[in-house]
């Protein structure tokens, strides 16, 4: 499958964001917010006009504020620089440091204006958490213990931010699709689902259709194909 240059760049940049985010101990929801800010920004703007790594760094810093896990601008600048320039010595307190710091601070205002200050997003995380807790009770306890369903689902959710899936679909639909895919990966069915008239996921989101879920899953699979086509 052929991928656009944009989606390859975006994949790499989000991978960079996740690496830097982990070093900054940024939790999963703020990290998801950072990725959405990044994707939204480049949905409206061209990668030719703005440096994606500056926008990504700014998105990390801004997401920390939005999600009440505020990071120090100094740490963000240092960690992002180090993550991006692995072979270079760490950043020193120099004019360059101050210039980078200033550029992220100004860029934050710029991104806020671009987003019209709408930087709160409804992520699939809380939906997925609820659904997982819910279906856990449908399984025999020993069966559930055997399967890393929650871990797989959480990993899928994290990975889906490498593409713009979360911009295209409703958060509860994404959560259901991820759960659906997780169960398929582990080759299990929701217990007793064949005895029921409605599919199990209709309990969670009434307005989702099997077509919706399949679209989301196919987008998810594309992200993994994209990964193999992007140089490490």
């Amino acid at each position, binding site marked *: 499958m052929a991928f656009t240059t944009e989606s390859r760049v975006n994949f790499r940049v989000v991978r960079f964001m996740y690496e830097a985010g982990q070093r900054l101990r940024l939790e999963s929801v703020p990290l998801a917010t950072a990725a959405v800010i990044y994707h939204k920004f480049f949905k409206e703007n061209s990668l030719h*006009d703005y*440096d994606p790594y500056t926008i990504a760094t700014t998105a990390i810093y*801004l997401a920390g504020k*939005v999600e009440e896990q505020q990071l120090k601008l100094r740490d963000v600048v240092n960690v992002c620089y180090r993550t991006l*320039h692995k072979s*270079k010595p760490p950043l020193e307190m120099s004019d360059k440091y101050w210039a980078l710091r200033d*550029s992220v601070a100004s860029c*934050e205002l710029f991104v806020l204006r671009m987003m*019209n200050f709408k930087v709160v997003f409804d992520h699939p995380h809380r939906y997925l958490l609820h659904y997982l807790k819910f279906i856990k009770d449908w399984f025999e306890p020993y069966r559930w213990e055997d399967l890393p369903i929650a871990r797989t689902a959480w990993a899928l959710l994290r990975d889906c931010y490498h593409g713009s899936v979360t911009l295209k679909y409703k958060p509860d639909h994404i959560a259901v699709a991820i759960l659906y895919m997780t169960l398929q990966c582990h080759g299990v069915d929701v217990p007793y689902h064949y005895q029921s008239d409605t599919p199990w996921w209709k309990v969670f989101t009434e307005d989702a259709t099997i077509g919706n879920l399949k679209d989301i899953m196919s987008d998810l699979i594309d992200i993994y194909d994209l990964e193999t086509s992007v140089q490490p």
Partner: protein
Amino acid sequence: MQRGGGEGASGYSGGAHPTSGGHSSYRYEDLEFPFCEDSGKYEKLAKIGQGTFGEVFKARDRKTKRLVAMKKVLMENEKEGFPITALREIKILQLLRHENVVDLIEICRTKASQYNRFKSTFFLIFEFCEHDLAGLLSNANVKFNLGEIKKVMQQLLNGLYFIHSNKILHRDMKAANILITKHGVLKLADFGLARAFSVQKAGQPNKYTNRVVTLWYRPPELLLGERNYGPPIDMWGGGCIMAEMWTRAPIMQGKTEQNQLQLISQLCGSITKEVWPTVDKFDLFAQLELPQGQKRKVKERLKAYVKDQYALDLLDKLLTLDPSKRLDSDSALNHDFFWTDPMPSDLSEMLSQHKTSMFEFLAPPRRPGQRPMPHAQNQNIQRPTHNPDLHVERVY
């Protein structure tokens, strides 16, 4: 940032060019922000507020002629970028849409140019409300009857119920932050100190700052250093404001935090383990010399101003020392005060007699410590000298 000479070095892009920008034909000033409009669309009319948060102006949309309030975002501490307090206020107001919460219309900015070192100024644009409660109460010509007081309190509690059920704490309840439109609709305003709260996770108490809430409205738990607080802190302020509806001036005008605790003890009785079983968890409780042997005199003291028994009872329950026993907004709304005659009545008729805007900012300053309420059995509570002629700004 490549486009825009004002942004300075990027250095992030692949490391190939530590400084980018400046080699583009675009100019930063010429950038268009399709979603964030220029503040020039509003015409500033008058300054109506000033505080630590910044300046507030009354303004008019040049096109639609709609009146708005413009609140400038202070960017003093710009070392850490856009202030997190302003971001919280914006986030919270975007989330909260309710009749009794002030409506954020949009956010505007000035154009960045060489004159402001390419730093835009941001303004929060709110619907315009004609009065604030502090302004109304300091004007002796404004008289609230019991039904109207009930309406004010009912709307105030409705607003608090709404924000608390959305897991938001206001953290700066005071009469000046309660806006009232000329139609008598009350709006909670100034969410500059507000934040989201969560229920304490097992073994992990929340650590919020306790340097919040204007001193005169600050509840005892904050004064004792609580950092794991919740909605009761706003309810205390609600109680103080309710009393003010009759006394017309803040009821406890402390000069220092310790003095405030003394005033609270004199009104609500000594702070002891008997009335507040968990109070000894605060270090300050042991360290401070708090008044001992004080009897609780909330009803007794306020009786001189408040004749209604239900009102006194509600006040007593809002001004409860132990936050876990303090009335919440839901129970307060169910209190008999709101369900007995005279029933809450519309404010618009009374307000229609007043053609000028009344804001605390436009009224003479209320100096702390002037005629504080405690000690005095028979001393009248008054707002510091007041001259209604000073409210010169005409609204209509």
